[in-house]
């Protein structure tokens, strides 16, 4: 993609001012790091950090038929999402492949907000169009370009939100709950969600308001963090990355995401294939592994047992918390057990690794 065609978030000038290193990601020009990925990672684990996640898609649904429409497309049982809550769920193809992983928030009986991955936004919008019937009383609006989304993450996130007048939100919201309120005097939608394995919030506001909130957080000495730290944090928490760990070529059974699928809710896209895959049992499974000595695994590297290729890594990085290489990948289902010894082919260096329990990092409490 040519650089000139990259989208920029409303916070772009603020990133440039902070001397962030910008990289193309999912069609957007995004900060990968400000000063140091490791420092940003540690800030989120120890105190708090903020991420511009405005590149993620935000699509609002309305209409008496909205719930029924979403129920046919998404894997979760939409009627059981109460207003004021959200749910992590998948959008699957007819063949059970994972088109995207998303959070679906219920705003009211007839209104929803969907947050999807940046690189999948256009595919999701096209998918919605494709499956809408003339009889569906639903409409939607892509609000991504006019709004800002900030992830405030870390053990001090509630305090930082409170510092900006969001004390009621910090005290009142439970995990995956959301509410509207004022942050730094600006109207915002605040959800207790994130992608780091820490407590935290995702804050959505109109562009100017979001830019103001971001600046208030930066001025309050909350560390700005880029996509580099976002990746090391999410991988330590063993949260899948769409396009790497899950994709239209993987199904929720092998990805270990059956818990996001309401198999008994009736028909939805991919249901019959997913039910069948569950019956038969998967041929391969997603596992987490850590390198025993030195070496950093990376996506696409071969995973071997006794010299035989049994799968491939889909994500890999250096874990700043564990101080060693960690990764996720698919291996033959019979080998997908805690404690199984693997070899990772790291550019020709046959590196010992072991399948371990996920997540790699779990916060206390």
């Amino acid at each position, binding site marked *: 993609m040519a650089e000139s065609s990259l989208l920029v978030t409303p916070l772009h000038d603020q990133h440039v001012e902070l*001397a962030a290193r910008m990289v193309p990601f999912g069609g957007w020009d995004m900060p*990968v*790091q400000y000063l*140091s*990925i*490791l420092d940003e990672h540690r800030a989120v684990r120890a105190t708090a950090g903020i991420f511009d996640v405005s590149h993620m898609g935000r699509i609002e649904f309305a209409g008496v038929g909205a719930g029924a429409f979403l129920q046919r497309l998404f894997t979760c049982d939409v009627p059981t999402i109460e207003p004021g809550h959200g749910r992590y769920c998948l959008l699957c193809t007819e063949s059970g492949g994972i088109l995207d992983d998303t959070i679906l928030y219920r705003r009211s009986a007839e209104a929803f907000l969907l947050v999807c991955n940046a690189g999948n936004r256009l595919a999701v919008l096209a998918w919605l169009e494709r499956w809408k019937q003339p009889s569906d009383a639903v409409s939607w609006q892509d609000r991504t370009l006019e709004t800002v989304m900030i992830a405030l993450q870390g053990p001090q996130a509630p305090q930082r939100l409170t510092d900006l007048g969001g004390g009621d939100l910090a005290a009142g919201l439970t995990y995956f709950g959301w509410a509207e309120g004022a942050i730094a005097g600006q109207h915002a939608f605040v959800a207790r969600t994130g992608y780091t394995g820490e407590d935290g919030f995702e804050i959505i506001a109109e562009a100017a308001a979001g830019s103001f909130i971001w600046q208030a957080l930066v001025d309050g000495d909350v560390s700005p963090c880029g996509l*580099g730290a976002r990746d*090391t944090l999410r991988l330590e928490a063993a949260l899948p990355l769409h396009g790497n760990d899950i994709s239209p070529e993987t199904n929720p059974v092998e990805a270990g995401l059956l818990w996001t699928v309401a198999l008994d809710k009736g028909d939805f896209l991919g249901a019959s294939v997913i039910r069948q895959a569950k019956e038969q049992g998967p041929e391969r499974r997603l596992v987490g592994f850590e390198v025993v000595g*030195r*070496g*950093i695994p*990376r996506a696409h590297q071969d995973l071997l047992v006794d010299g035989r290729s049994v799968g491939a890594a889909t994500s890999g*990085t*250096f874990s*700043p918390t564990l101080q060693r290489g960690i990764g996720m990948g698919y291996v033959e289902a019979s080998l997908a057990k805690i404690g199984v010894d693997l070899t990772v082919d790291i*550019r020709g260096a046959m590196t010992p690794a072991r399948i371990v329990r996920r997540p790699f990092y779990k916060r206390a409490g």
Partner: protein
Amino acid sequence: MEPSHPADRSYSKEHEWALATSDGLLVVGITGHAAHELGDVVYVSVPKASATVRQFEKFGEIESVKAVSDLFAPVSGEVVAVNDGLNDHPELVNQSPFDQGWLLKVRPSNAAEMANLLDAAGYQAFLSEIGG
């Protein structure tokens, strides 16, 4: 911020430096520009003492959180020492690329090879050329 590149040593277009010492050895490291581009270094893999390296050929790897890069020797010769401190403190490459973050000490086998390297001004000009 990009560090400046000291004038007391020679540079390769592969972003390594070589500094002559009074005992006839060359200290080898990566440039401040390279360290900055790599980001947080977490592993450095270099040959052991007595290994032979050849000018502009790969002699090791350096890995940051995000990516791995090959290391290319600025000169040919025998490795006489490696910076063991980097095992526990690879971040020295970022914090002090021209001093405490050195990688190797090499006994050069061909003094004429130094003519293939750039001086600090030449390296800086090369960086401007490549848009660094």
